[in-house]
């Protein structure tokens, strides 16, 4: 090997959005290792200006189809804080259930449809239909069940309909909730157990790499923080969501139409692995058992394990969903119109753990309830700097022993492990190697 390496993966596959991986090594010196985000910028912040609070979430939902529920939830919380809208306990429970459903849907999709083909050494999920039909069918059943949760509670999985600022415009019946509980208990949990077994047999395929970094997630005293919580850094501890700018520090880099972020170090990681590292003590027993089985330990510094953390989390979401459903059925669903009478007009910040990490929305409203300023910080954008740093450590480590093709594949797997959502990040992926 000459010590020169050029890798150039244009429009990386099996990720949401458009990105390129570019690695450039000359005479053993790494000049460039980065993920270029080439997704067309969409200018959502500019589109939101002047729109009414009723429309904010309808528009921001369109930032990303995969994270649409997460964008809506975050948008509602920002709007509700800015306008002083209180929501009921029933609304909170239904929203938590929706977030669980969306996390389940996204984690299962990523782990089994987008990442699993790497472990099984094929280019997509489609060959698995013939080679591993029972895995594909279980994955489809889990996705369907998660989507049924969204359809029953909010009308549809992509761009949900009935959740609005202040509550819901349509409510499920108790019979529908009972049916969801039955599906989760009788189908989702066994399918997740089966998926965990399959992943256990593939554990050897997960690359051995480690680079400790700063992990940032939400954290809550009451539960495994997904719907809400404080910002928690593995370096500096907890701060209020209102401090989000200090914990993100967005900046523009030339190779990415998505802005990068940093907090206490020059990069940090958000997402399932960050949540695991910060909040594993809040997971249910069933999820911790799956973590032990799959070799996921607290303080894990291997970004490839993010996929495993997603599966662990999916188990937690299913178990906790059943508990929430039981609580809702115990209370009985009460008809209540959404609370949409503002008590003030100002600025509000919302933060939600969406599947890929913390999502922030901040809006400022005028006295007519129209947006004068909006800011959205997307999880994938927060991870971009960390992905570049992982690539810079990984490439020199593997250059002596691996072929260019193998290195390119390792890099693609790395980026995919972050489950990047590029549409979101520009509101990102392709690998471009230049050795």
């Amino acid at each position, binding site marked *: 090997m000459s010590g020169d390496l050029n890798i150039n993966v244009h429009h990386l596959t099996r990720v949401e959005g458009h990105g390129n991986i570019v690695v450039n090594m000359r005479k053993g010196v790494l000049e460039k290792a980065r993920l270029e985000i080439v997704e067309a910028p969409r200018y959502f912040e500019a589109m939101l200006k002047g729109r009414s609070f009723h429309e904010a979430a309808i*528009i921001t939902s369109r930032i990303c*189809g995969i994270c649409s529920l997460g964008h809506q939830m975050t948008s509602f919380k920002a709007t509700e804080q800015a306008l002083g809208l209180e929501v009921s306990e029933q609304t909170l429970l239904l929203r938590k259930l929706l977030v669980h459903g969306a996390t389940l849907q996204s984690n299962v999709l990523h782990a089994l449809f987008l990442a699993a083909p790497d472990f099984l050494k094929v280019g*997509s999920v489609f060959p698995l239909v013939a080679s591993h039909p029972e895995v594909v069918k279980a994955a489809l059943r889990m996705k369907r069940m998660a989507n049924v949760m969204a359809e029953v509670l909010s009308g549809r999985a*992509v761009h949900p309909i009935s959740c609005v600022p202040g509550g819901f415009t349509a409510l499920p019946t108790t019979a529908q909730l009972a049916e969801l509980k039955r599906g989760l208990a009788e189908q989702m949990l066994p399918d997740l157990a089966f998926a965990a077994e399959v992943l256990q047999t593939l554990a050897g395929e997960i690359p051995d790499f480690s680079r400790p970094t700063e992990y940032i997630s939400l954290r809550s005293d009451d539960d495994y923080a997904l719907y809400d919580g404080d910002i928690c850094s593995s370096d500096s501890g907890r701060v209020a969501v209102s401090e989000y700018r200090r914990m993100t520090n967005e900046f*523009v880099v030339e190779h990415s139409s998505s802005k990068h972020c940093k907090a206490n170090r020059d990069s940090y990681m958000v997402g399932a692995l960050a949540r695991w590292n910060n909040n594993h003590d809040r997971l249910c027993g069933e999820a911790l058992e799956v973590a032990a089985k799959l070799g996921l330990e607290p303080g894990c510094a291997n970004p490839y394990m993010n996929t495993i953390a997603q599966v662990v989390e999916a188990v937690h979401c299913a178990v906790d969903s059943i508990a929430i459903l039981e609580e809702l059925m115990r209370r009985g669903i009460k008809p209540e119109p959404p609370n949409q009478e503002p008590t003030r007009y100002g600025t509000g910040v919302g933060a939600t753990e969406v599947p890929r990490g913390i999502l922030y929305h901040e809006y400022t409203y005028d006295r007519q309830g129209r947006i004068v300023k909006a800011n959205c910080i997307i999880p994938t954008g927060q991870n971009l700097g960390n992905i570049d740093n992982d690539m810079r450590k990984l490439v020199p480590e593997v250059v002596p022993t691996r072929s260019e093709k193998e290195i390119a594949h390792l890099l693609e797997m790395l980026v995919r492990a972050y489950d990047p959502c590029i549409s979101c990040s520009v509101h990102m992926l392709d690998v471009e190697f230049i050795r």
Partner: protein
Amino acid sequence: MAAKPRVGIFDFTGCEGCELNHLNFEEQLLDILEHVDIVEWREAMDERADELDIAFVEGSLSTPDCITRINAIRRKSKILVAVGACAVQGGVNAMKNLQPIEAVREEVYGEDKYLFPTLPALPLSAVVKVDHEIRGCPMTQIEFLKVFTALVMGKRPVETDHAVCVECKLRENECVYDKGMVCLGPVTRGGCAAICPSFGQYCTGCRGLVSDANPAAMEQILVDHGLAAEEARKKLQLFNANQLEGTQS
């Protein structure tokens, strides 16, 4: 039976929710795969193809690179189907067309505004010939299945060109206006089974206007129900900025 049609799925500027909706055909996905060979789909697979029978394309065109790519896709595809509001009308992306592009770029990227090229958000039909359309934000799955089965059988898909009101009435929903809200159902193309009004929401117009729409009368209806003229126009522009006259910059 002849060889299976070779199908590609492509994306441009958008949220990729329409593509996700392809994966959300959990129950029918295996049936769909029986009838076609999916030979290119960046979001789900590594392989790429040189020739296609049917290209399903989502997203709007908003950078110079988009224009090059859509032309290349058109060249290699026998049938091109625009999927979703972004591909068919420009979608919510087209709202940026309503403001001076300089201001829009500056709002998001500040002094780095010239790093990333951008064009007004265009529907596919502004650049290439589109053979069929599947509308909605996200694309309506029932409509996808109709178009898909028709194309696979070699038939011409039937396009829906009646208002959302029709399907809302067939479901005997209470009219959104009778709840004290306003709704774009009267001028928006159906095919969605009026899903939003059926879940207590108003129609946002995501499926575009019916072909012989009367937008002036629609604005008047909105004004008669309490909106200011400017608000009424904005409501209509949400998904239809490119379709309404006099709104393009």
